[in-house]
């Protein structure tokens, strides 16, 4: 694949793979990521940022950021990946290159707690209002336990109808 060879000449590529005819994957270092994105956008025609996602590699102690780019004229996708530290996750924002990145970064900030330096809106709530725990998409977050504690038991223990139980609960609460 010619684009991968070109990239290998210019940047420090840790990992590269041709997944399909229209999808390639490169992994690079934290430092080279932004120059690589700018190069792909300005010189190679990967004009669209499709999305940014994040993967939690808890065993390695790393977060992996994945930038998905799309070249409309060649109809080709490229995934650019990099790994950042999991303890104090911090990365440069790219919303100056693609304005739509702002919303994706905001979501990743909310779901994984990655701090994108320079993103003006990342601290605003997107989906989770009044969140009170560690970011929920991290793998050390126990959703079942959280759900049980916050939203109550799933089913009443005995087999009675829920509706009846509710009126019992009223009465109990009134007697208090």
């Amino acid at each position, binding site marked *: 694949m010619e684009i991968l060879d070109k990239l290998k000449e210019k940047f420090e590529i840790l990992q590269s793979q041709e997944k399909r005819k229209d999808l390639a994957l490169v992994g690079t270092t934290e430092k080279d990521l932004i120059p690589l994105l700018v190069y792909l956008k300005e010189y190679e025609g990967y004009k669209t940022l499709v999305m940014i996602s994040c993967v939690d590699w808890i065993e390695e102690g790393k977060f992996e950021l994945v930038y998905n780019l799309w070249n409309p004229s060649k109809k080709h996708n490229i995934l650019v990946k990099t790994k950042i530290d999991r303890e104090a996750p911090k990365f440069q924002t790219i919303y100056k290159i693609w304005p739509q990145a702002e919303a994706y970064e905001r979501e990743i900030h909310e779901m994984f707690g990655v701090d994108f330096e320079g993103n003006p809106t990342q601290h605003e709530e997107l*989906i*989770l*209002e*009044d969140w*009170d*725990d560690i970011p*929920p998409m991290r793998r050390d*977050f126990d*959703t*079942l336990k*959280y*759900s049980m504690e*916050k*939203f*109550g*038991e*799933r*089913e009443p223990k005995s087999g009675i109808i*829920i*509706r009846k139980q*509710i009126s019992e*609960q*009223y009465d109990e*609460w009134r007697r208090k």
Partner: protein
Amino acid sequence: MGKDKNYFLNEKPEKMTYGGVFRKINDWARARSLWVVAYGTGCGSIELRPTFTSRFDAERLGMRMVGTPRQADVLIISGYLTVKTLKRVIRVYEQMQSPKYVVALGACPINGGMYYDSYNAINRLDLYLPVDVWITGCMPRPEAILAGFKRLQGLIDSGKADGWKKYIENLDWYRENQRKIIKNWRMPNYNW
């Protein structure tokens, strides 16, 4: 709020009495003219479109979609509720004028359904709002929804759909539950 203060009640709404001379006629009319607030949560609102349009035609039961909660009688909770949506649902429900009814569709509002372990979807709706009719399924088909509405009509006709009375009577209990999960209560105390 401040400036908007005039647009909400400042005190707890009083208990509504219900009855009077025309009670039978009222119930009869209420059952046959259910206006549904056009608001959908979760997966289920997709089933409401065929229910209300030509294929299944809920209008022959006298039902209609209206765009504002003030004019509506029925609130359909059509699927899982996240904490964020629950806030809006509470506001919508309280802005509706009594008598009002809640219909819950699907497994999710009953016991969490397939989202029972989700960090963001509530498990049991009736801790937060009084529900008159449950329709099970994941998602219930329009036929099931129509059957549910038939049942709601029956309940109203016989005066048994009294969730709205329970809500005002036990408002403190409901508020306690609601505030337990809505940590930052940024709406008026009484949205009526």
